[in-house]
């Protein structure tokens, strides 16, 4: 069933009793050509593009929890393509282009909203770094604008310009950046994949990876053994544990990143803004809540919940940036587990095991990458070779010294 205003009216008239399920609830078959471990954004997008772009059908997505229960359901919904390194920039811009046509493509309103992403700078050195970044974007046709203090003030007059410890000096603006209703992305991809024959199997946890003669043979799950020719791992947060099942150690640590939402407010802040003198970024959802976050807690964690020091740290920065926030209330905090990689960049690659593919290491930038990650991972799985967009996201780049380190922090995962 196509979703549109006519189907909505038709179903309203029949009392909403005849809506079809957005996806089936299938039991796993004994065998698939391709199994994707992880029914989050990246896994579902991978299945969707495998079906749509590569015409493959005999695919299962195995999700240990509910559909979209990973980081696709617990992020701060920001999309942007303001990267500067050659290994990153074209990939994220491709993601942005996919976002721009996604809803019509998968027939689901994910509320893609290009409200602008503004990064504030507070020192000359930061401004120079933004100039470098902005030019790296512009040189490849990505939109970027360098704003001075007055231009920032015009956009957001209620920020602290006069009493600030670190005065705002300007900012880098990507107008095409913005926000997307995160859960809807999972649902749109799931529905699109399901309608193309992909089995999405919830509450099915991969417990083991069966490798025979250097080749993937299948997976053990709580719903039994499932045979497959190819296995794609898209289990961000838990990638190290999943990879262990295939005897691999990965260049990453798992960390908890907290995020927050305020009570619903009438329109308060129009775009996405990041503070440059502390860990704080904020946007406002269509529902009215201020969605914000900051830095990871810093210790290794799989717990999906954090502690108060980071809450205070983030909110101090928030009120430093916007003094009137003091009177707004924080409604809820939550935590997601990040694959913090050794250079802050992800991995989309084959592995030394034939038929085993890895999609991991997204740090806290995985949401914006969802469509391109799925698209590239689908390509890599279908063709058994990386696309040029993900060619730099190799697993062995640390061995060879080809890191993609936007922040320049080196092999310290909690600093990326």
């Amino acid at each position, binding site marked *: 069933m196509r979703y549109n205003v006519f189907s909505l009216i038709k179903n309203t008239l029949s009392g909403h009793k005849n809506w079809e399920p957005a996806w089936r609830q299938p039991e796993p078959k004994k065998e698939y050509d391709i199994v994707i471990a992880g029914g989050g954004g990246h896994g579902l997008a991978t299945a969707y593009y495998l079906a749509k772009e590569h015409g493959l059908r005999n695919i299962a997505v195995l999700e240990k929890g509910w559909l979209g229960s990973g980081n696709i359901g617990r992020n701060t919904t920001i999309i942007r393509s303001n990267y500067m390194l050659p290994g990153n920039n074209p990939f994220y811009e491709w993601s942005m282009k996919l976002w721009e046509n996604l809803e019509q493509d998968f027939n689901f309103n994910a509320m893609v909203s290009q409200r602008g992403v503004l990064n504030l700078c507070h020192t000359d050195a930061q401004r120079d770094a933004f100039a470098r970044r902005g030019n790296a974007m512009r040189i490849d046709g990505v939109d970027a604008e360098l704003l001075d203090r007055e231009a920032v003030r015009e956009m957001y007059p209620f920020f602290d310009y006069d009493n600030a410890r670190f005065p705002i000096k300007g900012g880098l603006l990507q107008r095409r950046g913005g926000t997307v209703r995160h859960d809807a992305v999972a649902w749109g991809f799931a529905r699109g994949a399901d309608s193309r024959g992909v089995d999405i199997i919830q509450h099915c946890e991969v417990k083991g990876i069966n490798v025979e003669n250097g080749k993937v043979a299948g997976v053990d799950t709580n719903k039994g053994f499932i045979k497959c020719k190819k296995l794609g791992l898209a289990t961000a947060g838990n990638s190290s544990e999943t990879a262990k099942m295939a005897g691999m150690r990965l260049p990453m640590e798992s960390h908890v990143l907290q995020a927050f939402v305020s009570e619903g407010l009438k329109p308060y802040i129009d775009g996405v803004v990041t503070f440059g003198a502390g860990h704080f970024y904020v946007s406002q959802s269509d529902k009215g809540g201020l969605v914000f976050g900051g830095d990871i807690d810093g210790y290794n964690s799989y717990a999906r919940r954090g502690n108060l020091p980071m809450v205070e740290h983030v909110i101090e920065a928030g009120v430093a940036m916007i003094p009137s926030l003091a009177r707004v209330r924080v409604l809820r905090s939550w935590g997601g587990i990040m694959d913090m990689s*050794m250079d802050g960049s992800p991995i989309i690659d084959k592995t030394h095991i034939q038929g085993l593919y890895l999609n991991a290491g997204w740090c806290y930038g995985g949401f914006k990458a969802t469509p391109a990650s799925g698209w590239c991972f689908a390509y890599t799985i279908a063709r058994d070779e990386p696309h040029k967009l993900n060619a730099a996201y190799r697993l062995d780049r*640390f061995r060879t010294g080809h890191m993609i380190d936007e922040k320049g922090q080196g092999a310290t995962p909690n600093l990326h």
Partner: protein
Amino acid sequence: MLIPCPHCGTRPVEEFTFLGDAAPTRPTTNDPSSMEAWYEYVYLRNNPRGTIDEYAHHSGGCRAWLVVQRNTETHEVYGAVTARAFASRKEAVAKGEQA
């Protein structure tokens, strides 16, 4: 979260800076054949869901580097020793294995 610093007693987590898994041991040779060992030391992590020995710097306290034993799934803290003590323990274990 509270960390039992061997010097300062039980202190809140905000006084500490973490630096990941303390399990990897720095290779003792610069021989070209040790490149793979160096690569593993610098980059590969067990990243366990469960018990981890993790480096923590008491940067807001005595400035000792500690190794805190914690559970990454429950955040339960089991204890902490100085990195120095941890290093000699590791060394003793390594020697024991050789012997």
